[in-house]
C-alpha cells in the first residue's frame, strides 16, 4: 500500500498528459484504418 502511494505520487499523470494520450490514441486508430470518431462512444 505504501509502495503504491509512492508510485502514485511519482508517476501521477497531469491533465495534459491524458490529453496527449487521447490524441495519440485516436491518431493510431485512424492510421490503423479504424474510425477515430468512434472513440467517443466507448
Amino acid at each position: 500500500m505504501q509502495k503504491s502511494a509512492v508510485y502514485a505520487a511519482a508517476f501521477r499523470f497531469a491533465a495534459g498528459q491524458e490529453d496527449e494520450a487521447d490524441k495519440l490514441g485516436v491518431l493510431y486508430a485512424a492510421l490503423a484504418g479504424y474510425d477515430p470518431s468512434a472513440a467517443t462512444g466507448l
Partner: protein
Amino acid sequence: MQVHPLTQDRVASTARYGAAAAKYRVVGQANPQARELLENNDVVPKQAKSEGFAALLEAAANYYVAGRPPRRRRSDARAPPPPPGRSRRGPRRRRQQEASYPGFARPSARTRPGDYRTAVAGYAAILQANPRHSLAAYNVACIAAVTGQRDYAIGWLQNAVADGFNDADAIARDPDFDSLHGDQRFAAIVAAARRGDRPERVVDAESILVRFRSAVRADVARGGAKPLRTYLRQFGVRFADEITREYAAMTTDSSGISARRRTARRSACDRGAACVRRAVARTRAARRCAHGEVGDRARRHGRDRARARRNRCGATSR
C-alpha cells in the same frame, strides 16, 4: 447517473481530435504512410510529444549521455585574465596540454619545484616508453645542467637535438643552460639545431652497458645483485632489452642458480636454510603460475595461493 466533469471534457476533446485524425484514415487498411504521419501530423504537434514521463526519461538519458556539466574549480576562478595578446596560462591550459600530449606535463605536474629526483624518474619512464622523445631528453638535459652535471647535460641536449628538438632559440635562451654558455660543445649543439642538423648521439648503448656492468659487479661483490628493476630504473632508459639480457647472464651461474638464491645461501642469518627453502618454494610457485618470475611477484603468488587455500576458493592466479 452523474458524469464526471473530466470525462465530459474528454469526450469533447476526443471528438475534436477524432475529427482532426479522420483525414489520415484509409478505410479497410492501415495507412501506407503511417510511419511518416506519426512523425508529422496535425493531431499531435511535435513539441507535445516529449511531455510527461517520456520527456522525463529523455531528459535523464540526455543528462546521462552528456554527463555532468564540468564544475568550475576554485583555481580557475582565481586565475587572472590573460594579458592582451597572450594566451591563458593556468591549470586549464595545463590540463589541455596533458590531455593533448600525454607524458609532456606528467613529471612537472607531479613534481614540486626543485624535486629533480622525481622529475628525472618521470622523464625516465617517458623515455623508456618512447626512447626518441626529444622533449623528455631536453628536460633531462635541463635538470642535469641545473644540478651541475655539465657533461651529462651536454650529452642529453645533443640527444634531444638528434631526436628532432631543433628550436635553437629556445635552447639558447633557456636559463637552465646558463651554466653551459661558455662551453664550445653547447655552442656547437645550438648551431647544429639552427641549421637543422641531426648530430650523433652521445649517450650510446655501449657506454651505458659498461656502467651497468660495473655497477652489477660492484653490487655482487658487496653481497648480491639488486633486482633487475633497480638497474632498469637506473640505466634502462633506452636500452632495457640489452640490460635485461646482460642481467640474466651476469646473475645466473653455470648451475642455473640465480643471484638471489646464492645470496640467500650466503646469508648469515640463523634460518639460512629456511630462507633458501622459501626462495625455492617461491620460485616453484611462480613457475606453476606460468609467469616464471621470482622475487616480489613470486612472493605475491605464494601469498595469494596461501590465501586462496585458506578461503578454499581454489583461485591461484594473481
